């Protein structure tokens, strides 16, 4: 169903006497030129993606020398230019590049890289490499800084993850983390409808009104979360009732999650930030097959997602960015895999991006303890996403000014 059909369909609901869901008014108001309607989708590649076998410096002899068994031959990579190309599993991403919808930001990292998965992921999520305290995340702080804008909405949503990612943890904003839309409903079992309603309203009372108590203790945190849960579940139920994807998605978990994201965007839930994750990138041994499968899952899911968004005329309002906690060492290890390294690339996909390659590929000969050196601080990318895309001032969120990376066309 495209956007026009969606509105017509909704109008017919009104015509036959159904109550118009609250989100319809927002759907009508949505305007792609209004920065207040822009959406950010973060795809976390957990485990440390091997950036060198993702965006491949195929023309560099040092690449082939360092990876006698894992290097891709020159004629197998999907060439971007005379220096780099994409892993053969990234055909969908290559098509997006050719359609001017993909930016590749090379050599992204931070000073004194940490090789622990947890610490490095924490650093990416908090955007505070110097601080050992990991209380809140960069997106969480961004949400808190514009809390008034999101009052009563679900400002951000993590989908299909075990826990709420640290990036979205905020002192004042409660971000739901859900496995799938079906799980996200309050159920009462086989009780009479009147008791059902009574219990729903009393359950909401257990959470309090969320105003009186502003303390940061755990009990108040649970109350606040319960309130968010019950209110947002009711809203999601309205939204989910009226969506069909415009094109098929692959049968993968990431694709299923992105499909749900598309559904929620088209439903104008009002959510501005979505967070999904693809895990398994910790390829210490025999990585060729598993890495190819992961990149194919990423590429297929992102390509289908953008096709669907385009059909719904939403592609200009949505920006998807990928990141991983670190890349891997230049040299392959003795187990046909690669060990934890440092900086790597980020992908940005959007109808509103200046497609292209930003930053040079890190040198394969000028190394830091066997690792690639980063040229772009990851907080520069974050600053661009906050200042230029979401229009949330980045300086207070990131604790400093970071020069933007010019990958946006808006």
């Amino acid at each position, binding site marked *: 169903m495209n956007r026009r059909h969606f509105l017509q369909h909704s109008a017919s609901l009104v015509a036959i006497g159904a109550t118009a869901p609250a989100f319809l008014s927002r759907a009508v108001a949505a305007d792609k030129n209004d920065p207040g309607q822009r959406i950010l989708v973060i795809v976390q590649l957990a485990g440390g993606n091997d950036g060198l076998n993702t965006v491949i410096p195929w023309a560099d002899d040092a690449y082939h020398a360092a990876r006698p068994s894992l290097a891709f031959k020159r004629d197998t990579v999907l060439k971007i230019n005379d220096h780099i190309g994409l892993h053969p599993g990234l055909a969908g991403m290559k098509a997006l590049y050719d359609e001017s919808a993909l930016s590749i930001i090379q050599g992204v990292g931070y000073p004194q890289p940490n090789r622990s998965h947890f610490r490095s992921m924490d650093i990416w999520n908090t955007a505070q490499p110097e601080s050992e305290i990991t209380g809140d995340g960069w997106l969480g702080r961004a949400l808190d800084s514009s809390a008034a804008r999101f009052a009563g909405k679900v400002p951000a949503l993590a989908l299909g993850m075990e826990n*709420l990612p640290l990036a979205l943890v905020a002192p004042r904003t409660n971000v739901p983390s859900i496995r799938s839309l079906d799980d996200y*409903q*309050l159920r009462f079992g*086989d009780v009479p409808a009147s008791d059902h309603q*009574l*219990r729903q309203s009393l*359950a909401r009372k257990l959470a309090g009104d969320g105003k009186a108590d502003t303390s940061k203790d755990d009990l108040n945190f649970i109350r606040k*979360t319960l309130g*968010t849960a019950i209110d947002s579940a009711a809203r999601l139920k309205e939204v989910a009732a009226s969506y069909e994807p415009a094109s098929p998605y692959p049968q993968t978990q990431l694709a299923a999650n992105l499909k749900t994201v598309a559904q929620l965007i088209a439903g104008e839930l009002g959510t501005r930030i979505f967070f999904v994750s693809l895990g398994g990138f910790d390829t210490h041994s025999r990585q060729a097959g598993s890495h190819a499968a992961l990149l194919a899952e990423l590429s297929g899911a992102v390509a289908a997602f953008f096709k669907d968004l385009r059909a719904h005329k939403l592609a200009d309002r949505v920006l998807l960015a990928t990141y991983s906690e670190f890349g891997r060492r230049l040299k392959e290890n003795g187990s046909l895999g690669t060990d934890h390294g440092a900086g790597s690339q980020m992908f940005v996909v959007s109808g509103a991006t200046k497609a292209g390659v930003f930053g040079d590929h890190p040198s394969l000969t000028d190394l830091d303890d066997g690792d690639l050196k980063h040229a772009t601080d990851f907080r520069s990318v974050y600053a661009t996403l906050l200042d230029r895309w979401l229009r949330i001032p980045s300086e207070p969120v990131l604790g400093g000014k970071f020069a933007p990376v010019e990958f946006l066309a808006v």
Partner: protein
Amino acid sequence: MNLAPYDSHQQGWTRRDAAHLLWRTQCGASETEITRATGDGLEKTLDRLLTPPEEDAAFAEAAALLRQTASDSDNIEPLKTWWLYRMTAGPSPLKEKMCLFWHNLFATSNVKVRSARHMGAQNDLIRTHALGDFKALLAGMARDVAMLIWLDGNANRLRSPNENFAREVMELFTLGVGNYTEADIKEAARAFTGWHVRNDQFWFNRLQHDAGTKGIFSESGNFDGDDVLRLCLKHEACPRFIAMRLLKEFVMPHPDESAIAALARCIRAHDFQMAPVLRELFGSQLFFSASARHSLIKSPVQFVLGTYRALDVRPNLKTTAQIIAGLGQDLFQPPTVKGWEGGRLWITSATLLQRANFAASLTNSDTYGKIGAPLISIEQQAELLLARDADTSPAATYFDKASGSRDDRVRGALHLILTMPEFQTT
């Protein structure tokens, strides 16, 4: 606050004190258990918790049967059932709780190990030492097949050391970040080279072992894996690290420096023997202090099994394993080598809806099991389940206003009590 003993004769010993002790040490308590512990007093209750009776024949037979099913199928689901049976029906809930504590510390996932037999063997190893000697548990873990598969033991070879196990020994098992250098890890990895698995057993592969001199924590020698473990145990950060984990598991989410230091001294004094350490901890003023009470967010296991114990539920173990996994604590499959971080991470809007829906099913159907406890009044239910002052008026209002029989209305009110934010903490 230090670990000075809690003087229950001087300071009183109430039903709420007993409930606090039992909820923390055995995941929940029934009316009968609270009455008994209140009558017995602190000392006698600690004795009983820490010196569990032998398993009776009927339990042992049923447990063995469940275990056999897991081994025969080599499927992890029946192994979860087996463990949940031990937790809910076994003679020592505290021992099982400590097994879960160690499973979380030595977090190993079947997602990579792919063998219920190996995961079961690791769980047996944990149970052997759960209330005993941490040093022996650590030594066993370094040779445990599931652990060696999990952290790439076979990839750790003479000419290409793999740092995975060496790093986690220091970062996650004994010391914590900041107490070692990257160089210590590289050297420790060399000491563990050749600690491999062959034919489903630990195998010291002499040809792949680096017998050279290594330097770790400013000591040097021809260290092997056991030497690394010895050096880690000797390190001053080790008892502090275990102390921190125990305090967060059993006492409070943000213990202060004096509590950590006091428990670390206690652990060192008892040479890493857990039973006497736990006895001091559970009998301390710190444990019964106001800042400790109701300060911990219940894990899915505590929430679900605590509800069962309080309401005397005969559980359906299969659906129980599913709901606990759904709430974020998939036994034998922790999300990462870091285990379940717990605390606030257990609570999201999604898991709270699921907790509420679990409570609805439990009070309204047989999906998870049958409630055996009598349907006492709303005030009594609230005291049994919460053991604290809390506003229970929504539950009382439901009981007063809903339709249906008295029992139906009590069950509906019970659903609301189990959904209360206060019930999500212990």
